[in-house]
Structure formats: structure tokens, C-alpha cells
């Protein structure tokens, strides 16, 4: 246990002293990691915030639930109870046929054509209706909700007007896919870059590795400092990337808040986004570890054979 701990402490010390003596190149590789992680993070932020923006517009996606014309007060109460239990519903309100009839007459007061047409109807043709806002703006969820509502007994028709939501969601879906592929491609690039850096380091330490093997070093002992180097590159690069993303969000926020104010909204990008930042750093560390693991495993078998 103590031996194990000593090995790790020695490896960390060794890596830190190597990095200190190569400050510039260490900074460069961390910068590469940082910038490479920054790009997909910004993409992710853009897509994520756009989808949050659609949540802001949730009130626009409304399901109109028209009841049968012969619905009684008891029917309405029953449906009200069903809606109250549905967890997917954010809020809803009832407009009775009389209220609707009144509203229609009010609105058409100024337009003689329509008001005369309404006058000719003689009796109220409108049904009782519930207007429902869902919690989610996701078109699939809305569609399912619509179908559920449609099947409630006493409901004549449920109407969902969500074409624009569908279009936006499709675009966001494309954005998410794009983010995923950019992340994957840049992860591969980073894997290669870190792997190559570690491989160069191994070459400069070749004598030490050979001698260490001769005097009884295990593979894990040889590997450890290089793995720590990879992890540290990832960690420092990740932190650098978080700083850059934070700075970029800050500059964007000035303009975004201005636009939001014009639209009477308080929407702005979150600067502290712990989940995203942890994800960036975690991913960078994982890539650093993997890149150096692959490089060191290949290099070790080459050195052992020679």
C-alpha cells in the first residue's frame, strides 16, 4: 500500500518537474486541448440555449380541446378532473361555450359583416373548450399528449398547432448531431496529438526506461508518469477551455441581453454551467489518459523488444 502510494507520488512529482522544465511546450499542448474542447462546447451551448429559448416560447404551443356540443356541466367537471391529474400539463383553462360566444360577439362588434353573420346564426354554435399548455415543447411529447387528450370520453377534437415547433426541433436535432460529430472528430484529433506528445517524451526517456526495466521496473511503474502526464494535459487543457468558454459567453451575453430586453425578456446565457464544465474537463482528462495509454503501451513493447 505504502509502496503503491510512493510510486504514485514519485510519478506525479516527476511529471510536474518535467513540465516545469518544459513550461512552454506544456502550455502549448494544453492550449491545443483547450481550443479543441472549446469548439464543440460552444456548439453545444448554442444548441442547448436555442432549445431553452423554445421553452421560453412554450405558451405558443397550445392544445385546444373542444368538447362535444352536448357536453353537460357534469361532463366538463369530469374532464377537468382528468386534466388536473395529467402530469404532462403545465396549466390549462376552460372557456365555456357562453364565454366563447360572448368573446366572439365582442370581437366582431366593429366588423358589420361578421356581426351580421353571427346575428343570423340565432343560437350559439360554439363548443366548450379547454386550452392546455404542456410542460414540454418537444413535438413528440406534444403529439402523444394530444392523442391522450383526444381519447378522453366527451372530447370532440384535440387540435395541436405545432408546425413551427416541429421545424425548430428538427433543426435543433441537426445541431445536436453536428455537435456530436464535431466532438467525436476533435476527440480523435486530441487523442492523436496527446499520443504523439507522449510518444516524443518516451523517446527522450528511452535510456531511463531501458535501465529501469533491467533493474526490475514493472510495466505499470514505467507507464505511470506518462499516464499522469496525459491526465494533466487533459486537466489543464480542460480548465483552459472552461475559462475560454466562460469568457466567450460573457462577451455574447452583452449583445444577447440587449436583444432580450428589446423583446421584453430576461433571457441570457448562463456563465456558470457546472454540468457543462465538468463534462469538458472530464472528457479532456479521459482523452488525455487514453492518448497517453495507447502511446505508452505501443512504445513500451517496442523498447522491450530492442
Amino acid at each position, binding site marked *: 500500500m*505504502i*509502496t*503503491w502510494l*510512493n*510510486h504514485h507520488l*514519485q510519478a506525479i512529482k516527476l511529471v510536474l518537474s518535467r513540465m516545469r522544465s518544459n513550461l512552454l511546450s506544456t502550455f502549448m499542448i494544453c492550449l491545443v486541448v483547450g481550443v479543441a474542447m472549446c469548439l464543440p462546447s460552444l456548439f453545444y451551448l448554442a444548441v442547448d440555449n436555442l432549445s431553452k429559448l423554445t421553452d421560453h416560447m412554450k405558451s405558443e404551443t397550445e392544445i385546444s380541446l373542444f368538447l362535444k356540443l352536448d357536453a353537460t356541466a357534469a361532463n366538463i367537471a369530469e374532464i377537468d378532473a382528468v386534466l388536473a391529474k395529467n402530469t404532462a400539463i403545465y396549466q390549462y383553462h376552460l372557456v365555456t361555450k357562453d364565454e366563447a360566444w360572448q368573446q366572439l360577439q365582442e370581437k366582431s362588434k366593429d366588423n358589420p359583416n361578421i356581426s351580421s353573420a353571427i346575428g343570423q346564426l340565432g343560437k350559439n354554435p360554439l363548443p366548450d373548450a379547454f386550452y392546455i399548455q404542456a410542460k414540454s415543447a418537444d413535438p413528440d411529447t406534444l403529439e402523444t399528449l394530444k392523442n391522450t387528450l383526444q381519447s378522453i370520453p366527451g372530447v370532440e377534437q384535440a387540435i395541436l398547432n405545432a408546425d413551427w415547433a416541429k421545424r425548430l426541433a428538427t433543426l435543433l436535432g441537426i445541431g445536436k448531431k453536428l455537435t456530436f460529430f464535431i466532438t467525436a472528430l476533435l476527440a480523435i484529433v486530441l487523442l492523436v496529438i496527446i499520443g504523439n506528445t507522449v510518444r516524443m517524451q518516451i523517446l527522450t526517456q528511452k*535510456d*531511463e526506461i*531501458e*535501465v*529501469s*526495466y*533491467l*533493474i*526490475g*521496473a*514493472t*510495466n505499470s*511503474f514505467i507507464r505511470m508518469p506518462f499516464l499522469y502526464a496525459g491526465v494533466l494535459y487533459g486537466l489543464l487543457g480542460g480548465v483552459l477551455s472552461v475559462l475560454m468558454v466562460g469568457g466567450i459567453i460573457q462577451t455574447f451575453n452583452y449583445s444577447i441581453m440587449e436583444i432580450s430586453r428589446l423583446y421584453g425578456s430576461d433571457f441570457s446565457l448562463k456563465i456558470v454551467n457546472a454540468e457543462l464544465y465538468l463534462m469538458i474537463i472530464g472528457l479532456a482528462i479521459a482523452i488525455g489518459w487514453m492518448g497517453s495509454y495507447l502511446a505508452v503501451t505501443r512504445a513500451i513493447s517496442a523498447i522491450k523488444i530492442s
Partner: protein
Amino acid sequence: MIQFDQVSKRYPGSDQILKNVSFNIGAGEFVYVTGHSGAGKSTLLKLIAATELPTSGTVLIAHQNVSKLKSSAIPFLRRRFGLIFQDHKLLYDRNCFENVILPLRINGVSEQEAAKRVRAALDKVGLLNKEKVMPITLSGGEQQRLAIARAVVSRPSILLADEPTGNLDASYAADIMAIFQAFNQVGVTVIMSTHDALGMSANQSRVLHLDHGLLTENPFMQKTLNLETAPTEKFSS
């Protein structure tokens, strides 16, 4: 402690380096391996240190068959040995202290304990005052003594030295021999290959003589000897 039984070694695409070599080395012995260059001395030492495996026959180190050891167990076998090479294999990017501490790092010894043992080892080879010096500035003899300090710092029970005096002039070589003898007197098994007779004359040591891969042994050496004619007794285990 070290047992060779009908050991042969052949590298791919070359002649047989060792042919049916059998011998037995007990704890605390001082053994010379002699022979002309290319006779297989280095290969013999490499087989003992498990940096090479025999083509046929068995090598037993402390009752363990080296060929049958898992590759993960070999590093632990090597830690029983202190290895000394003709070309020192020192690391020239760090000072003497850092060179000697390497085996202790591998063994996971704590820094304070390691520092004490490094100084003790440097003291034994007379380099205590050169702790902070870079090895490249040392003379050939001093470099070899530094290599010895590195080999003994982890207190191995067996010292394997491959022509440690090969590149040194006579007075340096005598220094080195005196150090090996001192270790042997405190119970360390010393196995040393050499192509010259110098230094062997000092005591009645056991000699394993290799000639084109064949082993002959003459257990007791005369004061002066001619290695090419010395073999008298064919060794069989």
C-alpha cells in the same frame, strides 16, 4: 541459488552461443565467468538476470524456473540482482544521487529512507562527496563505481557484473575489484564476467570458463594463469 541444467541459447539467425551449459552457484560465492569475446559470457549473465530466456534447458533462480515465470513476475525476480554493465548504463541527464536512487524508486522506498540508503551506497564506493555532480564529469573508474552504487543500493543478494573493469586501466580496475570483494565478504553472491585475468589472482575464486559456448570449470586458480590453457576439468553437474 542459481542452477543451470543443460542450458543452450541460440539467437535467431546465429550460431549456438551456449551449448548444454550446466552449473550450480551457491549463496555467497564469488564466481568469475571468463572466456574470449563472443564466447557467451554476456549471454550467460543475461540468462541469469532473466533478460534472455534459454532456447533449451532450465535456468533455476532461487528454485524458480525462469522460463516458466509469468512476464509480470520477472521484474520482481530482477530486483534480487544488482546489475553492473561494461558501459555503465548511467543516466546522463541527472546527477549521481538521482542515478543511484532509481532502483529504490522502483521498489517504492520512501524518499527519506531512500536518501539515507543512497548516501550509504555512495559512501561504500567512495563517491559521497560527488552526490550532486553530473556523471558525465566523472572519470571512467568513478562512473563504474557509481554504477556499482546503483546496483547495491537496493541491497540485492546477487551482484551480476558484465566486464565491469573492461574499459578501465589497472589501478581503477583494482579499486573496483576491491569493492566487489568487500561485498562478497558480507555475504553477497558475486558473479562477474571478465576477459582478462587481472584481479582474479587475489583469491582462490571459482572460475566458469566459456570457450565457443562450451563450459569448463576449474575451481581453484593459480596465482598467475593463462586463460586459454587453464581449463583442466570438464564440469558436470
